[in-house]
Each structure stands twice: as C-alpha cells, then as structure tokens.
C-alpha cells in the first residue's frame, strides 16, 4: 500500500522546466525597455473620422527570437472595418467558382448508341407506346437534362464587394492577432528549418502567407519557403480573400501593408463607375 502511494507520488512529479506556452503572439520580453522604439505616425490623405488608427508592432525576421522594431499605424477603413463574414463568404464562393469548369457529362438519347428503330408497333399489343429504346424512360437510355461538359461557372463579383471582402478579411486577421507586420524579408539562412523554427517560436500557426510589395523576394526566404508547402510568398497584387483565409497567419512587409492601404483607400475615395460596369470578356 505504501509502495503504491510512493509510486503515485513519483508519477505526480512534474518537471518544473516545462515552459508555459502562452497563445498570444506578442511576447512581452521582445519589447525593448529603453525608449528606442520608433512610432511611425502617418499623414493620410483621407484621415479616419471616428475610428482610431490601429497600431501594430513592426517585427523582425532575421533572428529566431522576436524583436519589436517599432510601431506602425494602419488605417481603420482598411484594417479595422466591421468583419462582414457574409461578404467574406461571397468572396470565397466567387473565387472557387470563377475558375471552376465542370466536366461532368451525360449522353442524350441522340448520343446513346442504337435506338433508331421503333421497338414495337404503336397499336395492338396492349403495351405503352414508344419510339426508341434509348428514350430517357428506358433503362440504358439517354439522360434528360443531364450535365453537359465544359460548363463554366465564371462570374464577376461586384467591385465594391471585392474591396469590402479584402478589408473585412484584413480586419478579421488583425483583430484575431493573425496579421503581423515585418520590416523586411531578410533571413540569415536559406534553411527551411530556420523558417519553421521561427514560425514555431512566434506562434504563427502552421501555415503562413507572406506578402511583399515587390515581385522579387530575397533569395533566402524564397528558397526556404519553396521547400515548405504551407509557407507561401505572394506579391501585393496577388492578395486575395481565399488565400488569406487558407493560411493561419498573414505576414505583411511594411511596404506591402502601406501599398495595400493606399490602393484600397484610393478605391474607397474615387469614382468607380468604370470598375462597377459589367465585366466584358475582352477587357483583360
């Protein structure tokens, strides 16, 4: 009995070295204590009227441990709007549909082989009248109103729903602490393990979408992200609702965040009649 108790107590011994893992991505130790932080205040052409600008940390990627390099302001019309999940959903449905071509195919009664001859005389047999054994009523006959292949599901979502989809998703990501701003994309090595460790240590979730202002990302991060299927790099013009939702965390560079903000603010404050016009196939 005593030995049982002793064994139980031995098993209860908990290693005191286990780190307590917090599920907040801001690590208080990463904030420098001296007043060396650079707080960037922005002068917008269209300053927010009521909602306050959102302040976000500028983080680094060049070391494994997190360093806060400064604070950055984001415009609330882009990064702090009401998260309209209905509009986000419409964007996702649109993005799935516009590229979807359905190849399901059935044969009509004309395409099924045979059936040219009248199976039995019209009258005198006491049987139902039929003109072909490939009629849709027959087993092995053609299909009436079945799917025909090469059906496109392309359509264009209205322009402002696309804009609102982007702002809603960016706002949701920021509110859920899934949007991080980094200074640049310079990594010390091109090892995928380094990038994986970095993502692990910062609680950035398994899948990460990195968005940069330019088409050409630095070599190290390109090589590292290329080897990991769930870490992807994208230029600003490729940013879309579907990819943002598909990845757990969205990493924007400073310039990318500013560019997205500038472009969306311009659309929100300009005449968009030409963009609201119905989509023409030859316009691209």
């Amino acid at each position, binding site marked *: 009995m005593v030995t049982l108790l002793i064994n139980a107590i031995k098993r209860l011994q908990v290693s005191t070295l286990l780190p307590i893992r917090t599920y907040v991505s801001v690590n208080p130790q990463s904030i420098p204590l001296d007043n060396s932080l650079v707080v960037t205040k922005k002068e917008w*052409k*269209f300053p927010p*009227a*009521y*909602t306050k600008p959102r302040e976000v940390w500028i983080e680094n990627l060049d070391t494994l441990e997190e360093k806060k390099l400064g604070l950055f302001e984001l415009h609330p019309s882009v990064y702090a709007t*009401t998260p*309209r*999940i*209905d509009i986000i959903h419409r964007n996702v449905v649109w993005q799935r549909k516009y590229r979807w071509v359905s190849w399901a195919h059935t044969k009509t009664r004309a395409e099924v082989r045979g059936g040219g001859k009248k199976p039995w005389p019209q009258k005198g047999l006491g049987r139902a009248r039929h003109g072909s054994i490939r009629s849709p009523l027959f087993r092995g006959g053609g299909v009436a109103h079945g799917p025909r292949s090469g059906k496109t599901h392309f359509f264009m979502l209205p322009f402002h729903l696309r804009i609102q989809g982007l702002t809603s998703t960016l706002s949701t990501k920021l509110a859920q602490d899934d949007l991080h701003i980094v200074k640049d994309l310079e990594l010390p090595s091109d090892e995928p393990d380094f990038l994986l460790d970095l993502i692990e240590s910062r609680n950035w979730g398994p899948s990460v979408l990195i968005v940069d202002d330019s088409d050409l990302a630095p070599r190290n991060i390109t090589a590292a992200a290329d080897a990991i299927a769930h870490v992807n790099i994208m230029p600003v013009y490729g940013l879309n609702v579907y990819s943002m939702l598909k990845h757990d965390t969205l990493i924007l560079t400073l310039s990318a965040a500013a560019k997205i903000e500038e472009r969306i603010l*311009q659309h*929100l*404050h*300009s*005449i968009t009649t030409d963009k609201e016009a119905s989509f023409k196939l030859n316009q691209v």
Partner: protein
Amino acid sequence: MSAGVRHNVSFETNNIVLIALVAIRSIRYSKWRRCCVHGARLRGFLLEKINFLTSQYSSFAKSPFVDKITEQYNYEITKNPTEWKFVERLMPFKTIPQVVPKESYPSGWIPPKEEARKLPYFIPRTKNYAIPIYLQLSFKGNRKITQLKKIEGDIWLMNDDIKHLLKTKHKRYVETRVHEVARFIEIKGDYVNDMKEWAFSKGF
C-alpha cells in the same frame, strides 16, 4: 482603325474640295457659263469630282479623306517642365477632392462638425460627402423604409435616441430594425427628412 497610327483628313483633299466649290460658284455667276461650252463641261467635271468626294462610306476611317500620317507635328520630349501643371489641370481627378471650407454653401450642403466625433455613435459621410440616409421604396412604393447606413460606435444607443425622437415628434410608436453586423438602422416609414435634420443637428 489600328491602334498607334494616327489618322487625319489630309490637307490636300480639303483644299481640292474648297477650290472646286469656289470654281463652281465663279462659273455659275460669270459670263463663262453662257458663252463658253468649256465652262459647263468643267463645271460638270468638278461636280462629278465633288460627288465622288462626298459619297457615303461605311465609316469615316475608311473614306479617302483619312490618310495615315506617320508624323504630323515635330515635338521634343521634355521631363518636369514648368508647363506640366497646366497638363495636370486637364487630367481627371484620381480621387474625389477634399471639400474647400467656406462661410456658406449656396447648394445647401451642410458640412460635418468636429464635435460630432466625441459622441458615442457616429455616421461618417460617404465618399461624395453626402449623409448616408436613404429612403427604400418597395412593393410599388407602398412600403417606405428609412435607412441609416455606415453607423459607427454604439448602434443600440443611436436606435434608442432615434426612437425617442420620432415618438416625441410624431406622437406615435415607430418601428425600427437594427443590423449590428452590417451597421445600419431601418425605420418603418418615411422619416428621411427628420433623420437628416437630426443628423445635421448632431453634426454628422
């Protein structure tokens, strides 16, 4: 018309027409017409020419008036000259321009006030500086719904204030509907002018 090639009515063709017209005019009112057989013949020739020139074409671009001119003007490309601001003046605005503050606005437009930003709720102006309060008509105009859109802040407090205001003003219960996610309030009935008046008095 292919892109990149400039088309224009050639100067020569224009001149030919002009000369021909002048010629006909002078032949008609001169002795030439009566005394000279050649005059009539010349006139007929010129008229024929003009008929040819003024005949109908499938499009203006395909008519012989239009010639391809590779280079019409001599120009040189300069960058950042002082004249550029005059070119910029002609270009359309990229964004809707800011409102220029004035003493009064003859159009009746009311500017938003600064103190409205301290209220617990807020209605921002649209991109065209209008107040987003609209009348929604449906069922052939039988159902009138006043809609206040783009509400920021405490939407439920705003709803209470609106209800109280309309009840005291019209001495009857007014039905409203609050959409918290899409940030709008709908009021059953046409209260657009009341709501606009209220919004401007608040400074929105």
